[in-house]
């Protein structure tokens, strides 16, 4: 049996100074509205990886270059701290809710339009959007128009999502083998989503912390494991803007540790199977947010050039465990 040793997934921290760590924390908070309090280890280890890629000697040197004003290093830092691994059909429960209840219900409600719009906000490397696409292929009747939008703040990660290429480790993570062979093909040492599925998803750059561009309204919004990185004010803003882009009978799905509680009374929690989903509260007196339609003051779906803005997507910082059977 020959097994290839996987490359190390996380670097060992080398001990950044408190001043540099704190500068990085503030910069990421300012640029991406992401809170990294109590995550010094994450900051250090991600900057170590970045140092290796940039050919610098240490995490501390990466931070110093950014502090001296190197915009591309700043962009790299925000990217490194917000870009993360994700998995297929993540957490199971929400996808089970989509399959058994939410999609069938919306399919009944949209009989005359025969179209569904789904938004994977902070889509990271795309597994969530492709998982939704696979599920739609299975249960939405043929002939329906399915529009799936994946947005993220990291252009690097969007390029990866668009390419639809995943490593062997990534396809192990939650993707049932029958779906793997149905929707993916080997491409060298990686796996690639087949064009039929790739065509179902559009990808665009977007900063959730800023006013949204004209997106229209969605039937389902997946906004999972993003809010936890925002402060309360930003959270409220993101949820208000999301509400304006959700149809009145639509569903909002958040991450397992997230809630709209304390962030306004416009949301109503509803348990679907084992999963909480959020619906728009149409009770009298409930706040009804303005719809952002028409051209926004910012160019729709086009971010500032990469070098000019280091703002990146909130995704899911986590240390992946070391692979087994690889040595």
């Amino acid at each position, binding site marked *: *049996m020959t*097994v290839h040793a996987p490359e190390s997934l996380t670097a060992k921290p080398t001990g950044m100074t408190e001043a540099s760590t704190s500068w990085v924390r503030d910069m990421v908070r300012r640029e991406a509205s992401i809170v990294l309090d109590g995550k010094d280890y994450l900051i250090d280890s991600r900057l170590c990886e970045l140092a290796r890629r940039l050919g610098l000697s240490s995490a501390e040197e990466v931070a110093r270059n950014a502090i001296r004003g190197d915009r591309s290093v700043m962009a790299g830092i925000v990217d490194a701290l917000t870009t993360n691994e994700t998995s297929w059909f993540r957490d199971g429960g929400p996808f089970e809710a989509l399959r058994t209840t939410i999609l069938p219900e919306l399919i009944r409600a949209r009989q005359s339009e025969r179209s569904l719009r789904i938004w994977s906000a902070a889509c990271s490397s795309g597994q969530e959007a492709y998982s939704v696409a696979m599920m739609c292929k299975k249960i939405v009747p043929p002939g329906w128009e399915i529009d799936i939008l994946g947005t993220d703040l990291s252009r690097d990660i969007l390029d990866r999502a668009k390419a639809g290429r995943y490593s062997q480790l990534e396809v*192990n993570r939650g993707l049932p083998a029958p779906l*793997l062979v149905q929707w*993916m093909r080997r491409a060298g040492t990686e796996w690639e989503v087949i064009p039929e599925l790739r065509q179902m998803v559009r990808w665009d750059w977007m900063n959730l912390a800023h006013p949204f561009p004209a997106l229209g309204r969605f039937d389902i919004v997946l906004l999972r494991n993003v809010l936890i990185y925002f402060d309360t004010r930003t959270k409220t803003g993101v949820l208000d803007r999301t509400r304006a882009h959700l149809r009145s009978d639509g569903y909002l799905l958040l991450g397992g540790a997230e809630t709209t509680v304390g962030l306004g009374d416009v949301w109503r929690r509803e348990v679907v199977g084992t999963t909480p989903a959020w619906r728009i509260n149409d009770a009298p007196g409930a706040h009804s947010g303005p719809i952002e339609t028409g051209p926004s003051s910012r160019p729709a779906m086009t971010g500032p050039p990469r070098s000019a803005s280091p703002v990146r997507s909130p995704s899911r910082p986590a240390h992946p465990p070391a692979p*087994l*059977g690889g040595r």
Partner: protein
Amino acid sequence: MHALVIDDSRTMRRIVSSVLARVGFTCVEAEHGEEALAKLEDMTAAGTLPAIATIDWNMPVMNGLTFVTRVRADTRWRDVTLMMVTTESEHGQIVRALAAGAHEYVLKPFTAEDMISKLSMLGLVETSAEVMA
């Protein structure tokens, strides 16, 4: 619940067994398909039929694919979930294994979390969240 771990590498059997033990399985190990068939007979006789067998592909004496085919040909074992755990990662190989009757496929290398999530998908672990915490 019982599990049958089939791999010609002792290290690999130890790794897989420890992951399965973590989520409550009692493991029996076999070095190749033929030994695994014998152990499966023993377990059946003892009333400890495994809920799952994890199967390497390339092994001496009898390979994993043949083992899958043999198990699927015997109705006494139709409730045994079969999961390939192998470096064989060609699209066609995975299709072959699934067609022969394997339920799942884990590519080496893998993480404990990946394997537990597969077990959870197969309904063999209650909720993956708590064991992965």
